């Protein structure tokens, strides 16, 4: 099974500032998908951004962007211009191209200070 590691249990950011969440993963596969999910107190996991491993270009979705370093097996999430609504738990997840299961990291709790 693949291992996804999020080494930051908690991160705090001032409103309008930028925060970066780290994620590393372990795999022997060359083709796979990586995801960042947001889980607010409502508990529903919401897809924030995804990256296909065969694409070198880093994915961007509005204020959210990733830094995908395939050789280093690193997939960090940058939240720019942080808003109060960004406060949540964020999970990094991995899926093999030929598998249907997602493997999740332990999560990072993001707090946004007004």
């Amino acid at each position, binding site marked *: 099974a693949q291992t*996804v590691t*999020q080494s930051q249990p908690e991160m705090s950011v001032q409103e309008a500032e930028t925060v970066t969440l780290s994620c590393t993963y372990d795999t022997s596969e060359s083709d796979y*998908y990586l*995801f960042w*999910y947001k889980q607010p107190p*409502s*508990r*529903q*996991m*919401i*897809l924030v951004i*995804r990256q*296909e491993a065969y694409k070198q270009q880093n994915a961007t979705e509005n204020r959210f962007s990733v830094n995908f370093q395939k050789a280093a097996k690193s997939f960090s999430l940058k939240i720019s211009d942080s808003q109060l609504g960004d406060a949540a738990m964020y*999970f990094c*997840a991995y*899926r093999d*191209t*030929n*598998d*249907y*299961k*997602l*493997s*999740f*990291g*332990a*999560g990072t709790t993001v707090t946004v200070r007004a």
Partner: protein
Amino acid sequence: GAGVSQSPRYKVAKRGQDVALRCDPISGHVSLFWYQQALGQGPEFLTYFQNEAQLDKSGLPSDRFFAERPEGSVSTLKIQRTQQEDSAVYLCASSSQIYPNYGYTFGSGTRLTVV
């Protein structure tokens, strides 16, 4: 429906009781997943259905856990003789694809507390 619906939202069970958790996936979604999320942790895979067929139950922690999806739509996760270690949030997710390139749509989960 518009999203994945799970019920009940909260469930308190006495140790040894049986519980049944329901998941209504998005209409027409062929893939349905159950995950278990312990407090402060990431979700862990339990089981996978493709239509009514349970293709993978490798993540079920014991034979006290049983899942079904008899008509390929609604799914039920049943836990028999609940134990304190079963306390967790149980998340259901569905996808229109077998290999969901865009991830899944998750429900809001059922928080099970065993006392």
